[in-house]
């Protein structure tokens, strides 16, 4: 979400501190989604500082059969940076989707999006990432 390990650490610690504060007041977070909702806003706030990704409309290519092989040549850090450069809510949608921890209902709730919007953002992100892969990873 931040594309920066230090920012991510700070967001994580702030989120945990907030949860601990709620717990100390006798009102602990009532579900696990609270952490991700909280962390998401903190990530977006943190992303507004420092270098910003250029806001450009990326080309889209249908996902190719060789996509998985191209991904096999990629470093996890590169993927993280690519996702963190996506505009929100697409960035949050991709981050949550590929964490593979949430149902589509939970993602819709977290991102306050309809299923159609969520599906559209993920699908668009997938095609844009394929374009990026085609440009950077030669197969």
């Amino acid at each position, binding site marked *: 979400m931040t594309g920066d*390990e230090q920012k991510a*650490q700070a967001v*994580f610690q702030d989120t*945990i501190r907030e*949860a*601990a504060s709620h*717990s100390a007041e006798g009102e*602990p*977070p*009532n*579900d*696990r989604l*609270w*952490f991700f909702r909280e962390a998401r806003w903190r990530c977006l706030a943190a992303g507004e500082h420092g270098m910003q990704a250029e806001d450009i409309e990326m080309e889209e290519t*249908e*996902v*190719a*059969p060789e*996509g*998985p092989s191209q*991904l*096999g040549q*990629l470093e*996890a*850090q590169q*993927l*993280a940076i690519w996702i963190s450069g996506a505009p929100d809510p697409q960035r949050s949608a991709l981050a949550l*989707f*590929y*964490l*593979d921890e949430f*149902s*589509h*209902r939970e*993602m819709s709730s977290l991102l306050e999006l309809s*299923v*159609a919007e*969520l*599906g*559209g953002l*993920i*699908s668009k992100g*997938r095609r844009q*990432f*394929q374009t990026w892969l085609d440009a950077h990873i030669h197969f």
Partner: protein
Amino acid sequence: MRLLNVWRRQRALAQCAPFSEKPSQDRAMRMAAFRARKSKQSAEAFAHQQAFDRAVGELVQAIPVPKEAAEWFVNEKLVAAVKKRAWKKTARNPVIVAIGLAVAVILAISVHNFLEHLKEFPGSTSARKLLTVASATRMSQLEPVRTDAGDLSDLFFMKHHLEHYDVPLEFSRLHTIGYRVFDDEEGHPVAQIEVSEKRMHFFLFPAEKKKAPNDPDLKGWRYIDQEGWVGVVQQHQGVCFMAALRGRKKDLASYLSSD
């Protein structure tokens, strides 16, 4: 229009279909994934999408989680324990309310039937019919006779050959104003007497035949009521006697307790 909406929703679901085989997917998602996998138009693209997503997912899993962060999730319990559904919320669920009402109605009917069954005794069916007869009887239908009710036993025996058609002692001193003998629906002879006191009616009719030899006889006085009429029945030597009047149980009880 509706079909189009369903198709759009399924397509949207397929676009965010999970790429790992987790059993907790809901039905709509399973259906959307199934259709995408089976449809000729989308099967290939969906297979590529799933393979692509799996590869991205593997990369995400490879992102190292700092040790301190991992320890937090192992050691700390910051999320409140999931509360059990409050019983008040459960009780307000329309389905639960409907089931509760249905059970209550069934219970009420069962209790009512049970209580009604407690009132039943051998001859109660005939007695109930005779209460209806009492309410519909006109004086003109009766043969006038002025004597004590207890004295009519001889008349019933001598004139109508009805043995043991005796008025019990509790009611034998009351003065009659009329009587008649008729056959009921089953052809059994019924003697009816009307007395001046409270326009009371007496009925004498054959007791029900026992269904089993060991069935007990009707013992003591049993009350019965119907449509504003109340009766009290006793069985003696195979004949039932019923005193009936328009009123309440206590109107008849006074005759029984005075004895």
